[in-house]
């Protein structure tokens, strides 16, 4: 695949796709990369994959690289929302369409990409918030909440937090944030922070743990178990993502609600790319299908998990 006889990529309908991925920072992300790589291969397209290791500069460089290579279409999963104007403009000048995957860019750059396919983190936060507001609506003495945030400053962390509390406030839930710390999206830190929460605040009276992703949630569950409490019963738990391990924990009764964030949108992406290159009209935002699952649905959903 080195020299790529892909000069006339369009002849047989196969495309050369440049894919600037965020990194490989989580199982979710790896599943996402794999889904897209597999889908490209299945569709007979050549995928130039680039892992930016969560660094915007590297990602910009990768996009410039794709422009220099004159690929047919660029897929960008932007690590942050701002700062893309110039490089997107360069792609446009070179006549290469750009499709955003997963995360978005700031509204002012809307004209510079064709469409965005992905999840809405704020919406995920709102989904979690809606369940919490409903579940604890009758909690008279105020709902005591612990929050395990993702990496400080990252878009999913910010949006999942904002969406969640937006709904709680809107629903008028009487709640109190007992503590909220970053667990960096990792099980290691999720567990460590939870242990400290437990020694500092105890678990008695705490109603809800909201973890921004699976891994932190699973780490926290261990900490709770090791402290001699029963996760899911003594304290209700919401996680976002929905990996196999997360669902397994749900089946075991260790958590109560999962907001799905679906990484497996490779095939959907290929369809979008093909219509983009073919010049068809596409919507500015194509949402990835994502569900929410409560205790009654875990068992049934577990076999469908892909990561």
């Amino acid at each position, binding site marked *: 695949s080195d020299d790529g006889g892909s000069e006339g990529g369009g002849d047989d309908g196969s495309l050369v796709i440049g894919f600037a991925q965020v990194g*490989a920072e989580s199982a979710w992300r790896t599943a996402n990369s794999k889904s897209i790589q597999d889908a490209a291969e299945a569709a007979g397209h050549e995928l130039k994959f680039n892992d930016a290791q969560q660094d915007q500069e590297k990602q910009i460089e990768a996009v410039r690289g794709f422009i220099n290579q004159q690929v047919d279409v660029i897929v960008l999963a932007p690590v942050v929302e701002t700062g893309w104007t110039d490089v997107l403009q360069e792609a446009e000048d070179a006549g290469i369409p750009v499709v955003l995957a997963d995360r978005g860019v700031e509204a002012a750059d809307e004209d510079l990409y064709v469409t965005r396919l992905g999840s809405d983190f704020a919406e995920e936060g709102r989904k979690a918030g809606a369940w919490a507001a409903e579940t604890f609506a009758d909690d008279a003495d105020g709902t005591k909440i612990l929050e395990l*945030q993702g990496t400080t400053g990252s878009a999913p962390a910010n949006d999942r937090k904002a969406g969640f509390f937006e709904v709680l406030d809107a629903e008028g839930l009487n709640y109190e944030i007992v503590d909220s710390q970053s667990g960096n999206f*990792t*099980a290691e830190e999720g567990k460590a922070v939870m242990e400290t929460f437990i020694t500092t605040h105890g678990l008695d009276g705490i109603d809800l743990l909201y973890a921004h992703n699976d891994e932190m949630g699973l780490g926290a569950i261990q900490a709770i178990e*090791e402290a*001699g409490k029963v996760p899911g019963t003594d304290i209700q738990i919401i996680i976002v993502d929905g990996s196999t391990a997360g669902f397994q924990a749900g089946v075991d009764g260790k958590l109560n609600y999962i907001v799905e964030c679906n990484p497996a949108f490779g095939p959907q992406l290929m369809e979008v790319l093909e219509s983009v290159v073919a010049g068809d009209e596409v919507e500015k935002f194509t949402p990835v299908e994502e569900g929410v699952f409560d205790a009654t649905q875990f068992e049934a959903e577990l076999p469908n998990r892909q990561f």
Partner: protein
Amino acid sequence: MNAYAKRLMWPVLILLALIVVNIVATGIDFIVPSVNDGRLGGAFVNILRRSAPLLLIALGMTLVIATKGIDLSVGAVYAIGAAIACQMIIDAPDQSAAGLIFTAVAVALLVTAVIGAWNGTMVAYFGIQPIVATLILMIAGRGIAQLITGGQIPKVEDSSPFTQLGRGEILTIPLPIWIAALVFTAIALLTRKTALGMLLESVGGNPEASRLAGIRSKGITVLVYLVCGLCAGLAGLIGAANLGSADANNGGLWIELDAILAVVIGGTALLGGRFYLLGTTIGVVIIGTLEDTIINVGLSSQWQFTAKAIVVFAVALLQSPEFRGWILKPFKPKPEVSAPAPAEEVPAK
């Protein structure tokens, strides 16, 4: 011994100060251990238990730094150790088989030791600067770990005895603390009961003079990196066992900086020479306590970095005699001096 105690004084004081802050913020429970399920717990014991992997790495790092080296790859090696063990265990049909656990641990340690030896060989035999030699594995190492796990996060069943490495206890004391204490003792004995410590300091202090004195400086250098790799691998095993999973990407991320920090807080100079294992241990506990302190005094996550900077700066300055002299200048009378050696005392030939 006196100079040694002096070295340790400032780190110990800082640690005590941090502990006091925590006690004020959360009560005396912070320091008093409690027993949960037959396992010693409580805030401070938890800190010690969680610090075990960092301590292991920092001990290895201390030896490397004593030879005027540095090992940036320990975080990646940590991830590799964790990945190998977890992947081997989940690939097996029975995750609880004692033989399997033993083999997985042995293979992980063997591989990480080989990686350490490789680093040492690059430094000693190819003459590559330690930062660069280990940078290579810092970059590639996590890739190797991901390759082993296929980019997934292998999760070991909670019932597997492997997890006891991180979660178990012996005589109510958590196993990671035992392991760290054991390694500490082993390294302390290895360096102080044999001549290894002195030879290390010699190689670090003046490699050419050491060579001319007949010391096998290359062999010693390789050995030291090997031990460092082994420690990092063991740390990875404990970390993975604690979680029951191995995260190739984030496991032990930036732990090399914390380890170096702990070594230096403990009084070992990055320029090689004298090293202080006990100092390193105190440095590790300071770092571990600091992270909890931020949560306990109610600061937000954004404060993590800033608070760390402030504490590290305080330790660094307090350890500097020049700084102490400068700050105390207004309060100090004339310096007291030791009695001069009278000329008559010189033995006649």
